[in-house]
């Protein structure tokens, strides 16, 4: 009896040891890791990006694959669990031997993944607007840096709407904090009095906005044109806008410009009270041109739902993927080091009629569009930059980082090169 039981237990543990150890033969496919949460709190945003990747890979395979090989998507679910992101990345690179990873949404997931990608020399395409203050040789940031979203948005409000008083409201985490810090010093540099800036942070998923909206209303009743710059994240937005509408704060009195509310988020909101509020992105589904129309049609065919929206991070993945394909073709291999070198300088058309170029700091050039929310859940572009804005990893408006630049080409080859000290801080 004793031995039998020991066998059982031993067997189980032995299997545990063995299973992850299977040797994956490197076949005739090029593997692409898709690292987006399919469950948990972030599934709401990230699932769409997984589908986008599957669509892009399918399309590329229809075109005959890459370097004569088929592409194969390796989808994993990090389940909105940040340590799991690191583990899954390790699995993708070390076990599955993927050649590139497209993934992450939140800052913390990227931070969790970063050391692993660097350690194992992987390749990560990160498609979401983020706070900057970071640059890694192994990461390509295809979303907006603060200067490609926040600063132009504030310029718009200041110049076109003549806003004099500012509410910077955000969820309490690093992206809003950095953005607000940048914006605050930017506003002060532009001559705004500190008394005319109100900063407010709320926890994730905050659902009771009564006090804060009342405060905003009070702040906005001081006789100067007031606007809210919102870096409120995800789920907290719906109750926030509902409360604004109910307390009678209309977009005409106090417009709200959001950096995290896109078409997909709007599809889950009652848009009536939101009409006229703003968002700043680098892409809107409503932009009319041929590429975009084509993209939307392909998306609708792929997802088999005519009502599904497209959004900015999806465009970022499209650009990132197309760039990677071009770079691999240029390098003639999927070898990470060669691809990284080939990436810089690659240009692909974006979906808003312009061109995206990969810069030396692994950021893109992007147009900045300001859109007003319409009743049908779409944005109407009311303003846009004349040309594409180059992304800047290190903000020029922050004390610690204004002297830093990122340049991943020779001779600097450094993510945080200090222009004053003429040296790379990361040099070990």
């Amino acid at each position, binding site marked *: 009896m004793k031995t039998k039981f020991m066998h059982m237990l031993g067997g189980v543990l032995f299997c545990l040891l063995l299973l992850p150890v299977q040797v994956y033969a490197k076949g005739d496919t090029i593997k692409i890791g898709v690292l987006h949460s399919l469950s948990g709190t972030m599934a709401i945003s990230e699932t769409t990006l997984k589908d986008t990747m599957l669509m892009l890979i399918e399309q590329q395979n229809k075109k005959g694959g890459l370097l004569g090989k088929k592409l194969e998507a390796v989808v994993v679910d990090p389940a909105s669990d940040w340590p799991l992101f690191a583990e899954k990345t390790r699995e993708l690179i070390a076990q599955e031997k993927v050649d590139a990873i497209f993934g992450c949404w939140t800052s913390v997931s990227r931070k969790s993944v970063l*050391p692993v990608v660097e350690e194992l020399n992987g390749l990560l395409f990160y498609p979401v607007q983020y706070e900057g203050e970071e640059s890694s040789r192994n990461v390509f940031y295809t979303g907006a840096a603060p200067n490609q979203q926040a600063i132009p948005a504030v310029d718009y409000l200041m110049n076109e709407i003549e806003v004099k008083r500012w509410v910077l409201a955000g969820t309490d985490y690093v992206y809003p904090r950095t953005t607000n810090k940048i914006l605050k010093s930017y506003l002060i540099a532009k001559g705004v009095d500190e008394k005319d800036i109100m900063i407010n942070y709320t926890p994730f998923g905050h659902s009771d906005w009564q006090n804060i909206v009342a405060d905003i209303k009070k702040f906005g009743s001081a006789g100067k044109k007031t606007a809210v710059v919102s870096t409120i994240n995800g789920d907290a937005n719906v109750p926030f806008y509902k409360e604004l509408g109910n307390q009678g704060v209309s977009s005409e009195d106090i417009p709200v410009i959001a950096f995290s509310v896109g078409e997909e988020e709007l599809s889950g909101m009652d848009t009536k009270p939101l009409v006229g509020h703003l968002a700043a992105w680098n892409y809107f589904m409503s932009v009319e041109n041929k590429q975009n129309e084509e993209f939307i049609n392909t998306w609708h065919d792929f997802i088999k739902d005519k009502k599904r929206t497209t959004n900015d991070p999806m465009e970022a993945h499209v650009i990132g993927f197309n760039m990677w394909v071009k770079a691999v073709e240029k390098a003639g291999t999927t070898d990470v080091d060669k691809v990284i070198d080939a990436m810089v300088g690659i240009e692909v058309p974006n979906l808003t009629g312009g061109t995206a170029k990969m810069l030396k700091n692994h950021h893109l050039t992007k147009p900045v569009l300001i859109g007003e929310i319409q009743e049908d859940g779409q944005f109407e572009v009311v303003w846009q930059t004349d040309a594409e804005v180059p992304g800047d990893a290190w903000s020029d408006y922050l004390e610690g980082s204004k002297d830093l630049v990122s340049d991943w080409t020779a001779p600097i080859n450094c993510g945080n090169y200090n222009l004053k000290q003429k040296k790379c801080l990361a040099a070990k």
Partner: protein
Amino acid sequence: MFYMLKGDRGGQALLLLLSIAVVLVPVLNLVVPEGHALHVSTFTVTLLGKYLAFALLAVAVDLVWGYMGILSLGHGAFFALGGYAMGMYLMLQIGDRGVYGNPDLPDFMVFLNWQEVPWFWQGFDNFWFAMIMVALVPGLLAFVFGALAFRSRVTGVYLSIMTQALTYALMLAFFRNEMGFGGNNGLTDFKDILGFSLQSDSTRVALFIASAAALALGYLACRAIVVSRLGKVVVAIRDTEDRVRFIGYRVDHIKLAIFTFSAVLAGIAGALYVPQVGIINPGEFSPLRSIELVVWVAIGGRATLYGAVLGAFIVNYSKTYLTGAAPEVWLFALGALFVLVTLYLPNGLAGLSKKKEAAA
């Protein structure tokens, strides 16, 4: 020497396997070349190390729940506190290799414009101080919470809900950037421990061995308690608390001692977990996580310490496997597992083997 393992076949098997693993895994990882069929990748080593840390946590939970009958829905908090203590040490080891190159301050403090390391970070650059804190902080929290709760005889469901409130409150607190623990992002981007690079294979193997040793020691300690008269009294408290009191035992003292000890174990598990996964953040305080780890114990079989280990391994392994192989199914599978185990396997998988033994 190992009197506590007498009659504990599961425990014997566990210790045997652990000692085999401690010898075999390093050899297969470091000596056997990559590409060889028997090579154990560093990924696997780290994964196993993580499971071992979880197993220790499960043992800690089993001690208070399976034996003493206190369903703690807040053990994740002790785990996370231990993890944070370790994370703080690791954070201060980064030195000037952070993105801002500040030799004194971790990146997130530079970012928050702090001028100096706050007082509660003092001393954490010393490994041994940090290790003491790994045990002390969770232990102290458990002691204070337990002293209040057990003295006023908060029991059963009420106690469970209170432990949940505790971890929930801590989660909210740690999410705040002003707290000085890195807010939502937590602590990450660790470089080395005791001067050894966390990215090297040998450090990872060493952490694996440390986790295995901690699990073995933790197991033996719990087992020693369980087989002693104290252990019998603890079970008696679970079954009939009043009776124990009327035969002259200070029930609150006993509960407090066991609860605190268990919290310390959880803290140690957290400290082992952090360097292996490379990040600690407030998500670990989430009440759902604490419930999940109770479920490991339930699935493995409560009031059998080796069952807790088994449960931790099986659930986490299937999580690793399913989130890769069939992500959409994962929650269905986990949910169904909970329901089925509670309905049909009240004694968990360990109960299954016991039943067999009884039948044979």
